[in-house]
């Protein structure tokens, strides 16, 4: 025996070495900045990309497509039972009626939290995420710790977010392994009966629509 190292051992070792802060630690690498600039220049010179297109794409995901879209969907579902039923039956159409559709949300399914069931969404194979309603995925959603643990130890993951649920609550984890994208409809918090739809939307956090958080009162300025 000997010679070739056992690949399983190597894999475990590299797992242990993995730093969950990787994205934060490596982000300011000046060589990546230069490298991406070089690539962009080549693609522009070849005529494969239009520089103005890049600006519009970045602006779209920084200012137009983000979790406030999803918050409006949830708030509407909270105040309008007909919309809620439509959302649970045909989420793609119900969400499109509010103007959100397309890339990485072509086939939507909405899953509703109840007293007895809490939903949590993950993509263990990459980082599939419902872009039209939640925008770009946060670092933790794309990270190895979340993708590894969500399916095996969802209560442990929730604890990392400061969320504890009663033992009697069933946790249902949705692994987004195909092109269906999932939106969690969190439970409407008690004491919000008199709030308007707009006010309610400000209670809906991004994390509550992935299942790693709960709605909460907006911070006062």
């Amino acid at each position, binding site marked *: 025996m000997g010679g070739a190292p056992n690949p399983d051992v190597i894999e475990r070792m590299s797992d242990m070495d*993995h730093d*969950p802060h990787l994205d934060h630690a*490596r982000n*300011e*690498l000046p060589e*990546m900045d230069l*490298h*991406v600039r070089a*690539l962009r*220049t*080549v*693609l522009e010179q*070849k*005529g*494969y*990309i*239009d520089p103005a*297109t*890049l*600006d*519009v*794409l*970045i602006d*779209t*995901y920084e200012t137009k*497509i983000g979790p406030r879209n999803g918050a409006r969907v949830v708030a509407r579902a909270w105040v309008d039972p007909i919309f809620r039923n439509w959302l649970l039956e045909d989420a793609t159409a119900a969400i499109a009626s509010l103007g959100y*559709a*397309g*890339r990485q*949300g*072509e*086939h939507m399914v909405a899953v509703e939290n109840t007293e007895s069931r809490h939903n949590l969404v*993950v993509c*263990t*194979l*990459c*980082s599939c995420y419902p872009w039209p309603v939640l925008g*770009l995925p946060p*670092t*933790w959603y794309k*990270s*190895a710790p*979340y*993708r*590894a*643990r*969500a*399916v095996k*130890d969802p*209560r442990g993951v929730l604890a990392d977010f400061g969320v504890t649920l009663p033992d009697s609550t*069933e*946790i*249902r*984890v*949705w692994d987004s*392994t*195909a*092109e*269906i994208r999932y939106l969690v409809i969190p439970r409407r918090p008690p004491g919000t009966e008199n709030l308007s739809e707009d006010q309610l939307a400000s209670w809906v956090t991004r994390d509550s629509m992935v299942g*790693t958080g709960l709605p909460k009162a907006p911070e006062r300025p």
Partner: protein
Amino acid sequence: MIDYRSHADLGGKDGHGRVIPEPEGELFHARWERQALALTIAMGATGAWNLDMSRSARETLPDYRSLSYYERWIRALERLLIERELVRSDEIAAGRMLHPARPGLSVLRAAEVPATLAKGSPTWRPPAGPARFAAGQPVRLRAAAVTHHTRLPGYARGKIGHIEALRGVHVFADTHAQGLGEQPCWLYTIVFSGRELWGDEAARSHSVSIDAWEPYLEPVS
């Protein structure tokens, strides 16, 4: 490819540590990350490859585990460009065009961005025949490993679950990633008990679902 190996199949793997939450407004951690996003979407829109090929290029990067999310995007983008001879590596090193561009690519223009994103790339296709399985039926997920891109996570291989929902007929990621065409097939949501997947160490009352194409499924007698 006989030596196909994905480094992205993380579901259930131990040793990755805790999840680090992130505030809602944090989208990018360096300027080049914005460019990485925009370049990848703009080049994807040229039709030179499809999303499944893109995922396959990312998950097989030999240093996948040590790269941040947008580093993976850039490395995979370069790989796709070089494989298709759209760009050569000496050009990326030089930061300028050294060889003629390949004609015939459809360039995404800035004015087309909103409509292109709103349309997305739906994977639903009209059914050519009836579904083999029905809701409520138990099925076993294919146990054998495959030597190409697949969306069946390792933790579900050989496991028995129940069909919860039929999601219609969708482009089959496995063949689409290999350039073998769409070969659309029925897609199902399969739910597993935590105990079936993880044994007695599974948390109390938790279940996990995946979305699986019909070729992944075997009947359980």
